[in-house]
């Protein structure tokens, strides 16, 4: 079966005032795959994510292309990308501290009619006439959110403010929000860092299950066991360059990869 590329970068570059963070990086993500992205600290993994979602922009002189479902998305705003189905999490967990856990999840619901001011005001009168309002969708979204929270084992915290969560729970919440968006491609930046091994295995099982449904995952992770076990394809970044890519097995046997990880110690 030939799988089509949903997300593709072609020779993207990023230079932070002299430091070449990414150099001609080209990656291809095929539909319904789990793609791992590994590399030592500072190799440019998060920068690649930031470039794809346009948190930072590419170098002006040497602009490569980023394609999402065959369309060039070089300068597309992050929120539009999310609406189209390209969602990400951040390495430093970004939560809404003063909102409850459930509210955090509900922000991620896409195309919620109640998020439209006009609809909210019109529905006050519709409510008085006992007609349907945004509350129906709200309830549907909330149920879905509770299911995801249940799976991530934080549903008992649904009514707590997110600021009380521990580091690991925040990671889970950010992951839950990404799952809530039902995106086509989800970029996860260290989704299980600080999460206990049992739960992290279960999360990857869930990711595997969602992948079979239709989602593509692009995952940065330092936990080699997990990533090697669950990915279909792995890219290895080192000093801003892709030094290897292939199936997990190929990567494990690739001497370049070992050098990249252990090279500094050997010298």
């Amino acid at each position, binding site marked *: 079966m030939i799988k089509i590329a949903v997300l593709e970068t072609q020779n993207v570059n990023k230079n932070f005032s002299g430091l070449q963070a990414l150099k001609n990086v080209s990656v291809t993500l095929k539909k319904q795959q789990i793609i791992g992205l590994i590399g030592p600290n500072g190799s440019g993994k998060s920068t690649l994510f930031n470039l794809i979602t346009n948190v930072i922009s590419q170098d002006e002189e040497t602009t490569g292309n980023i394609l999402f479902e065959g369309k060039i998305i070089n300068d597309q705003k992050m929120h539009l990308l999310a609406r189209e189905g390209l969602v990400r*999490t951040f390495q430093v967990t970004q939560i809404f501290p003063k*909102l409850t856990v459930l509210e955090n999840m509900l922000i991620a619901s896409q195309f919620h009619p109640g998020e439209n001011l006009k609809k909210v005001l019109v529905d006050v009168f519709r409510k008085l006439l006992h007609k349907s309002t945004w*509350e129906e969708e709200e309830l549907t979204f909330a149920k879905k*959110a509770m299911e995801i929270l249940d799976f991530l084992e934080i549903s008992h915290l649904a009514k707590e403010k997110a600021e009380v969560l521990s580091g690991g729970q925040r990671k889970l919440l950010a992951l839950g929000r990404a799952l809530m968006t039902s995106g086509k491609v989800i970029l996860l930046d260290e989704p299980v860092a600080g999460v206990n091994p049992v739960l992290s295995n279960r999360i990857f099982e869930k990711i595997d299950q969602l992948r079979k449904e239709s989602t593509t995952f692009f995952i940065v992770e330092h936990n080699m066991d997990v990533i090697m076990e669950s990915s279909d394809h792995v890219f290895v970044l080192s000093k801003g360059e892709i030094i290897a890519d292939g199936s997990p097995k190929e990567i494990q046997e690739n001497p370049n990869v070992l050098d990249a990880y252990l090279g500094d110690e050997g010298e």
Partner: protein
Amino acid sequence: MQTSRLYLKGHRILLIIGGWFSSFILLTFLLSFVIPNPLNLTLPLFSYAGIFGIAALSLNLEVGVTGISNFGKIAFFMVGCYTTGLMYLFKFPIFIAIPIGMVVAGFFGYLLALPTLDLREDYLAITTIAVGEIVRTVLRAETWIAWPQNRSEAGGTLGLTVENIFRSNITSDLVLGNIVLPSTLIADFLFLFSITAVFLLVYLFVEIIYNSPFGRVLKSIRDNDLAAESLGVDIVEYRIKAFVVSSALAGLAGGIWALYIVGFSPDGFPPYYTFFLWIIVIIGGIGNNRGVIFGSLLVWSIEYISRTLTGDIDTLVSRIVGILNPLSDFYQQISSHIPIIGDFLLSLNPISFFQEIVVINPPEYYPQFFFGILLILFLIYRPKGIFPERPIQTVAELAVSEHVNKTDSVIEEADGNDDRVGR
């Protein structure tokens, strides 16, 4: 499940109406022991509190909910005030004049929002302060905007003069047996009722916004705009919407102010009023609309009562100074006996320093001293305000309670023989 109660919280509205009017009666009663005619004080006090409450609710929508630190609120208030005043003078009925004022203020907010809402919080604050000052200066400098005074020389400093529609329409006194209710009193009462009604409508409006997914998105932008954007929220669009709605509400407050205060000029809108609104929001509770109502009442009570009692403060000050004078003489005698550094100590006399502070500063600044101290105390000990922010309430809560029931029944099934089944 009563879902409708989550939309229009009737019982809470009744609570607020009850609180508002009972505090009116209580304050009038208490003041009747201090001053001869307490209604002369409480009627304007509650009217001011109501009008500023509307403006404070709109500021809360910006600051407390969306996280836009607007320090130029008075500009929108002023725009609404002037537009409504001019429309009134052009013989528009007030039911058209006030909405026009709201629309113009909202449009002004939109114009300001377009270039500035990309700015970081502190830069936005600086810009909005500047805008507030610019509007005031422009209105003062423009000669055409004085009405109906002779405007050739003084220009905008004369401001506008409209009329109090209640007072000009109600001219006959009401006689009930022996009691004669003067027409001005009835007019003022009716005006207070109207202001309260509008205030409550605005409160309902902001509560509906607050307790909706729209309000939730605004709060998410305040909390973490990067995360909100990564989940598909167009933060600029939402911030502009919140800013425009809030500006229009400030315009509404300004329009009522124009009709209430009758004569106004640019110098009647000092930047102090912006900070006044901020004090109301911070003390009442950032992000809590009920807190804002309470804060408005509290802050205006302090301001207005102390402003009215300033006549007595003059005598009070002279009495304090009279008590302190012997102490000051004593200090001078002691320091004159100390060699070498005696002169220096004399110049440091703390009592005469205190006297100078009391004498130099006019009594109208005393509430500002007090607000300064109050603000610092609140920011240190209770930064969330008297009424802390509460989570928004939508039907999503039903999903949680349903979920809890489900898991509970699972637990019950699992340990059916257990004694703890009763939970």
